[in-house]
C-alpha cells in the first residue's frame, strides 16, 4: 500500500514538474538569454519567445515591458528599414500595454520610451533627428524627475552623445561623463527581481572601455 502511495506521489511530482510554468522564472531565463547574446539569430529566437510570454501572461506588465525592450533592442541589428520600423512599432505597442496595466508611467517606462524614440530615430537619422531627438530628451527628463538615480537615464544619454558627431558637441569624451555617472548607480542594483529592471550594466562597462580607448579623432 505504501509503495502504491509513493508511486502515485512520484507520478504526481513528475507530472507537476513537467507542466509547472513559473512566469517569473521563464521571463527571467528568456530575458537574460536575450540580453547576453550578440548573435542576431539567437536574439531573434529569444525575442520571439518574449512575444509568446507576453501573449500568454497578458495581465503582467513585466512581460510586455521586457518584450518591448527586446523589440527596440533588436531593431538596431535589423538591416531592412521597413522591418526596423515594424519592430519599433511593436516595441511601442508593448510598452504602451505595460503602462496601461501599471496604470501610470514610472521612471523605467519613461526610460523605455526614450529608448524606443531613439530606436525610431536610428532608422532614418537624417530625417528624424529633430522630431525624435526631442522626444528622447523629454522622456529622459521625465524619468529623471521621478527617480534621478536610475542609471539607465545616464546610460542612454551617454549612448546618444557617443554617436553624435564631435562638431555638434558629441563624441567619446563628452559621452564618458554620462557612462561614468551611471556606473556606480548600476553597481548598486540587484539583478534578481524582474519587476525592478536592471539592464544596461554590461553594455555601460563596454562603452566606458570604448571611450577610454584610443581616441583617434
Amino acid at each position: 500500500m505504501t509503495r502504491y502511495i509513493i508511486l502515485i506521489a512520484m507520478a504526481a511530482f513528475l507530472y507537476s514538474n513537467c507542466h509547472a510554468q513559473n512566469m517569473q522564472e521563464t521571463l527571467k531565463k528568456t530575458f537574460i538569454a536575450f540580453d547576453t547574446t550578440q548573435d542576431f539569430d539567437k536574439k531573434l529566437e529569444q525575442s520571439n519567445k518574449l512575444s509568446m510570454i507576453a501573449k500568454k501572461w497578458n495581465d503582467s506588465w513585466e512581460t510586455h515591458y521586457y518584450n518591448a525592450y527586446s523589440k527596440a533592442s533588436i531593431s538596431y541589428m535589423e538591416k531592412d528599414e521597413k522591418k526596423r520600423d515594424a519592430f519599433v512599432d511593436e516595441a511601442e505597442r508593448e510598452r504602451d500595454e505595460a503602462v496601461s496595466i501599471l496604470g501610470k508611467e514610472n521612471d523605467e517606462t519613461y526610460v523605455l520610451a526614450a529608448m524606443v524614440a531613439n530606436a525610431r530615430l536610428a532608422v532614418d537619422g537624417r530625417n528624424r533627428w529633430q522630431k525624435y531627438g526631442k522626444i528622447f530628451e523629454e522622456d529622459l527628463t521625465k524619468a529623471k524627475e521621478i527617480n534621478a538615480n536610475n542609471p539607465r537615464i545616464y546610460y542612454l544619454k551617454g549612448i546618444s552623445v557617443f554617436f553624435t558627431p564631435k562638431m555638434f558637441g558629441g563624441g567619446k569624451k563628452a559621452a564618458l561623463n554620462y557612462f561614468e555617472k551611471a556606473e556606480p548607480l548600476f553597481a548598486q542594483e540587484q539583478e534578481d527581481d524582474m519587476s525592478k529592471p536592471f539592464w544596461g550594466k554590461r553594455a555601460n562597462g563596454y562603452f566606458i572601455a570604448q571611450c577610454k580607448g584610443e581616441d583617434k579623432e
Partner: protein
Amino acid sequence: MIKNFTLRLKWQFLPLAMLLSASALGQSVLSGKVIDDKGKPVSGASVYLDNTIDGATADSTGVFKFSTDEKGAQTIMATEVGHENAGMPIKITGDVKDLVIKMKTSARQLDEVVISAGSIEASGNGKTVLQTLDIVTTAGAQADIVKALQTLPGTQQQATQTGLFVRGGDASEAAVVVDGLTAQNAFLSTPPGVAARSRFGAFQFKGVAFSSGGYSARYGQALSSVVELNSNDLPDKSTVNLGINMAGAYASGSKLYKNSAVEGTAYYNNLTPFYGLANTNVDYYKVPQGGGGSAKYTWKPNKDGIVKALVNYSKFTSGTGIPDPDSGMAGKTLNFDLTNQNVYSSVSYQQNLKDKWRLFTAGAFSYNQDDIKWDTIPMLNKDNRAEFRAEAKWYATSRFSLLFGGEFQHFSYSRKYGYLTGSFDETQFAGYTEADWSPVNWFTIKPGVRYEHSQILQQSDFAPRLAMGIKSGLYGQFSVAGGMFYQLPDPQYMIYGYRPKMQEATHYIANYQYMHNDRTLRVEAYYKSYSDLIREHVSMFDPNNYYRYIYGTVDNSGYGYAKGAELFYRDKKTVKNADFWVSYSYIDTKRLFKNYEAEVQPDFIATHNLNIVAKYFIEKLATQVNVTYNYASGRPYYNPSNPVFMADRSPEYHNLSLTVNYLHSIKKWFTVVYAGIDNITNHKNIFGYRYDNAGNAYAIKPALYRSVFVGVNFSLTAFDKDEL
C-alpha cells in the same frame, strides 16, 4: 521465491513506467516549414501554439521544430516582422510533421496620397521634398529664402527686378504669407534696377511651402503663386547666437521657460567691406547701411495650443547713382537717396481640440515708409496694412476634413512726389471653405471656394479651386490642381485714382511625382489664361517700370496666357553624403498688359531655366561644399528701332556659385565659418538694354558680377548644470 518477488516488482513498477512513458508520450513534436506567398522560406518567423509558450523560431530555410504537451484542437500561429500574422487549426494526437504555414507579405502601408500639383513644400517632417536647412545652404541664395526658391521649377532668375516671378507672372502676382497673413513688404526697398532680398531670415522658419499655382482657397489676391512661411514654434533650448560677416554683425538669443520662450534679435548692416572688395556696376555714393531688431514671444497654454507674438523693425539708408530715366542721354545718372523704415508685428494663436478641431486666428499690422530723393526732388511713399484671419478646420473622420474661415484686410498707400500726391485706402473681406476628402487610400480630392469683396473697386468675386491626387503604384502619384484667381491691379494705378476691375487668371496644372529611397522625380505641366489684365492706352511705350507716371486711359482690356512644362529631380541617395537637385522649366507666355504695345513675351521671362544645385558633406573635414549653377535663356527687351515690339533677346544668363561651410565646436560654442563666391566665372550677365534718344544702348546690369562673401556664426546652447 525470488522469481515471484521480481515478477511482483515488475508489476508494481509497470504503472510507474507507464506513467513515465505516458508523460513522454504527452510531448508531441510539431515540425514543418514556413513559406511566403511565393513559396520562399520565411526565416526568423516565430511559430507557436496560440495561448502557450510552446514554439520555436524558423531557421534560414524556414524549418521549425518544437515540442508541446498540449493536445487536441489547437491553433498554430506564425508571426514575422515583414509578414502578416498567419494561423491555422491543427489537431494534436501525437507528433505532427510536415506542417506548411503560408504567410502573406505585409501589405505595405501606402503612404497617404498628398496632392503635390503646383506646390513644393520644405519642412522637417521628411515627407517633403526640401527642408528649411536645404534652402539655407543653397549656394547663390545668400541665405535668402526667396532667392533659394529661385532654384525650383517655375521661377525666374532676377538680379535687376525685385520679387518672385512665377510661371509668366510678374512680381506682384506672387504673395508672401507669414503665419497665415500676407506680408505687404516682403522685400527690402532698393533703388530701381537693383533686386532686393526678402526681409526674412531663414532660421526664423520651420517650414516653407512654395506654390507655383493652383493654391488653396485659403489664399487669394495673387494671380500666380503663394509662398507660405511658417515660423518656429517653441525653441528646443535657450540659445545665444552671434555672427559677423561682410554685411555686418548680428546677435540673437532665445530663453526657454517651462511653456514659453522669449526671443530677440538685433543686427547692424554696413555693406562697405562687401562693396569695397567687389567691382560694382552701380555707383554707391552712400553705401547701404542700416539695422534693426525683432522680438518674439511664444507660449504654449496647453499641449495642443500655441500663441506667437512678434514684432520686427528695420531702417536702411543708401545712395545710388541710377540711370536717369528721363534723360535722352545714355549713361547719365541721377542720385537716388533712399531711407526705408519698416515695422511689422503679428499675433497668432493655434489650438487643436481633441484631434477633432484645429482653430487658428491671427492678426498683423505693418507700416512701411520710403523717404526718397531723386536728385533734389523728394518723394515720400507710405503704406500700411492691418489684417485679421480666423479659421477652423473640422476633422470629421480620418478621411474627411472641412476648413472654413474668413479674412479681413485693410491697407493704404500714399505717395508724394514733389507736388504730386496720390493715395488710396482699401478694405477687403474674404470668406473661404475647402474640403479634404480621401474616400479610399489612393485618392484624395480637395474642392474649395473663396469669396472676396473689394471695397474700393466695389467688386466681389467667387473663386473656385480644385485639387486631386491619385496614387499610382507604391511610390508614385498623379495630381491635378486648378482654379480661378483674382487680384487687385498694382497699387500704382490705384494711387493715381484709377479704379479698374480685378484681374483674373485661371490655372490648369497636372503633375506626376515619384518618391522612393531618398530620390524624387517630378514632372509638371500647366496652362494659365489671364484676362482683365490692367492696360494703359498710351501712344508710346516707356520701358521704365519704376515710378513711371501713369496717364491716359486705364482699363482691364489686357490678356495673356502662360503654358509650360517643368522637370525636377532630387537625389540624396546615390552618392554618400551628397545631395543634389536639377530643375528645368520651359515656358511659353505672352501678354498684353500695362503699357505694352502688343501681346508679347514680357521682359521678365526667360523661356528656358535650368538650375543645378549640389551639396556635399566632407565628414573628415567637417565641411560642407555647395555648388549651384543657374542658366536662363535670353529674355526680351525693348528696342525702339525694332519695328517688332519686344522682339530682341538679351544674352543668356550663366551663374556658377560656390559656398563652403566649416563646422566646428570651440568649447561650448558651435561655430560655422562660411565663405562663398557668387558668379565664380565673372560672367557678364546682361538683362537687356536701354536706349537713349540718340539710339545708344546701355546694358541693364546687375549690381555686381562676381562677388565674395565671408562670415562666421557662433551659437551657444544653454548647458544645464543639473544635467550631469
